[in-house]
């Protein structure tokens, strides 16, 4: 499926929005370690940027997946990684299960306000003792009449300090392993829920990340997304979307980093000529640009197959793995080529290095991607 004029026009819209409404505010958000998400998401909702692929009944746009790719890419080109992640959590990490498996009532109550830009949501899977190893989660939801009573804790949860509701993965039976988990929507104003700490991070510093505690939090059983006991499987397919988003935005972020570095090195005179005149620099940048292009084209292939309804678990896993590693390499080289100034906090290269480091950890670490791949491709004994 090729890009149409509408896709190009949409890209221009998001790029202008990022350049005019996001980037000028990034320094302030980084200083405050906070993005006013309710405000930003409300602005984005007015332009129809939220819920691109979702049903118009709930305020979605009914668009194809390439629009999501474009949104992720253009947010990836922003001056920091936090905004792309925060928006991605809302549109492509915390809501895909709700849209796909949730009841009409649940979607009206929780999805629609998010797509109107009135509410912020977040996805709560990781725990202090269970990250990429999702099967080890301990948060439990015990049924009491028509209610779940949830107890446990969740860790490293993006947007959680300002989220209005969370998509929580909890154990709802004693089956253990991959069985007996459910996805449950928990409004953050429910008694017993607290954010015990805002976490201090290496990068993505403008994005709020919390350690969450659930102390006998009661929500209706009707807040369960899809089938009780199918939470792990639903979350796994939600993770596929999340990995795609990460790969899309990372590729575009890397491309912009190389462009910015090229422009800087053209002006930067060392030993009497522009740094960009040195073949070593040219070759390294050309090689990285080629790698980024391969990733972008691979992303496009993932997007097209996903849009055609194919299961893209393997491809999304490869894309996310490659994106994380490539970002680390690009970030290191662009900082190196900037020299001393590249190591300064005032130069974008420092933040770029810190922010993108997360890609190899979040949404399943590189090693988990490899584990998944090894299993799918049969490289296991």
């Amino acid at each position, binding site marked *: 499926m090729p890009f149409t*004029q*509408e896709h*190009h*026009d*949409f890209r*221009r*819209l998001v790029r*202008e*929005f990022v350049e005019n409404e996001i980037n000028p505010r990034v320094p302030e958000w980084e200083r405050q370690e906070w993005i006013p998400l309710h405000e930003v998401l409300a602005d984005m909702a*007015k*332009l*129809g*940027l939220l819920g*691109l692929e979702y049903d118009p009944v709930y305020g979605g*746009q009914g*668009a194809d997946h390439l*629009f999501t790719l474009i949104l992720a890419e253009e947010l990836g080109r922003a001056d920091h990684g936090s905004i792309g992640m925060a928006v991605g959590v809302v549109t492509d990490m915390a809501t895909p299960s709700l849209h796909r498996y949730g009841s009409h009532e649940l979607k009206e109550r929780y999805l629609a306000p998010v797509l109107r830009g009135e509410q912020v949501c977040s996805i709560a899977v990781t725990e202090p003792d269970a990250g990429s190893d999702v099967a080890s989660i301990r948060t439990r939801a015990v049924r009491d009449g028509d209610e779940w009573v949830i107890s446990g804790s969740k860790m490293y949860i993006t947007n959680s300090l300002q989220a209005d509701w969370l998509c929580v993965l909890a154990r709802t039976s004693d089956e253990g392993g991959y069985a007996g988990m459910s996805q449950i929507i928990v409004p953050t104003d429910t008694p017993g829920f607290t954010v015990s700490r805002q976490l201090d991070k290496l990068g993505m510093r403008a994005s709020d990340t919390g350690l969450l505690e659930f102390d006998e939090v009661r929500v209706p059983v009707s807040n369960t997304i899809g089938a009780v006991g199918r939470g792990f499987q639903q979350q796994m397919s939600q993770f596929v979307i999340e990995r795609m988003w990460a790969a899309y935005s990372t590729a575009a972020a890397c491309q912009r980093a190389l462009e910015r570095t090229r422009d800087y090195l053209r002006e930067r005179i060392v030993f009497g000529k522009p740094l960009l005149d040195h073949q070593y620099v040219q070759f390294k940048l050309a090689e990285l640009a080629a790698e980024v292009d391969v990733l972008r084209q691979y992303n496009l292939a993932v997007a097209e197959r996903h849009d055609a309804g194919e299961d893209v678990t393997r491809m999304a896993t490869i894309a996310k793995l490659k994106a994380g590693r490539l970002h680390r390499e690009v970030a290191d080289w662009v900082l190196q080529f900037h020299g001393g100034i590249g190591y300064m906090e005032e130069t974008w290269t420092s933040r770029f290095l810190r922010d993108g480091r997360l890609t190899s950890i979040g949404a399943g670490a590189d090693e988990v991607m490899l584990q998944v791949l090894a299993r799918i491709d049969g490289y296991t004994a």
Partner: protein
Amino acid sequence: MQVVVCVKQIPDPSGTYTLDPETHFLVRPDEQVLDDTDRYGVEMGLQIAQAHGGSVTLVSMGPKGSMQGIRQALAMGADRAVVVDDADLKGSDALTTAQVLAAAIQRTGFDLVITGTESTDGYSGVVPQMLAELLDVPALTYATEVEARDGKVTINRQTSAGYDVVEASLPAVVSVTAGVVEPRYPTFKGIMDAKKKEVEELTASDLGVDTSLRQRVTAVEPAPEREAGVKIEDDGEAHLKVVELLQQKKVI
């Protein structure tokens, strides 16, 4: 109220402009963008049409290319567009441009014509006034505020001292400065709807306009390089030197 907004597609200003070495005409790529200064006119037109009921028609002259720039304005909310594209119009001067636009606007019908003050690629800055003359209606130029109602239009006309309040009866031509209103972004829906909107394509002969060139660009010179500034070391008296320099330049 029938509002016509004149818009122009220009090469993306963030790229490099190239001139044809023989004719010195600007080489126009297929993909052109809406002149940024026209976004203010489109926004003004939309606000007036929305406030008083009515429609916004875009009128544009130039190679249509991919129509990207026209679609940008349609995606903002304009109702329809008229695009005059004719190879014979290549290199037209301001008067021919105004004649073409006037003929297209007459054909469309109008209560109010809104233009920018000048295009970002041509900068002649005289088309709005010529247009008014050709349409035989008042020209209200350099507007920083516009109000149109009850058969008249009132603007704040920017001057070097501040602004004049200028009023005229409709129909009229108003040229608006950048900043007259904050242009809206197109929305996702606006982008998707733009392709369904009517775009009428005309040639100069459809409009009966004489396309013979009356002006020729004989030479083009690069702008002179900016000269280096003067550095004044502050020995405690620097302010006096600064004042002297400013007086020499007649800034103060």
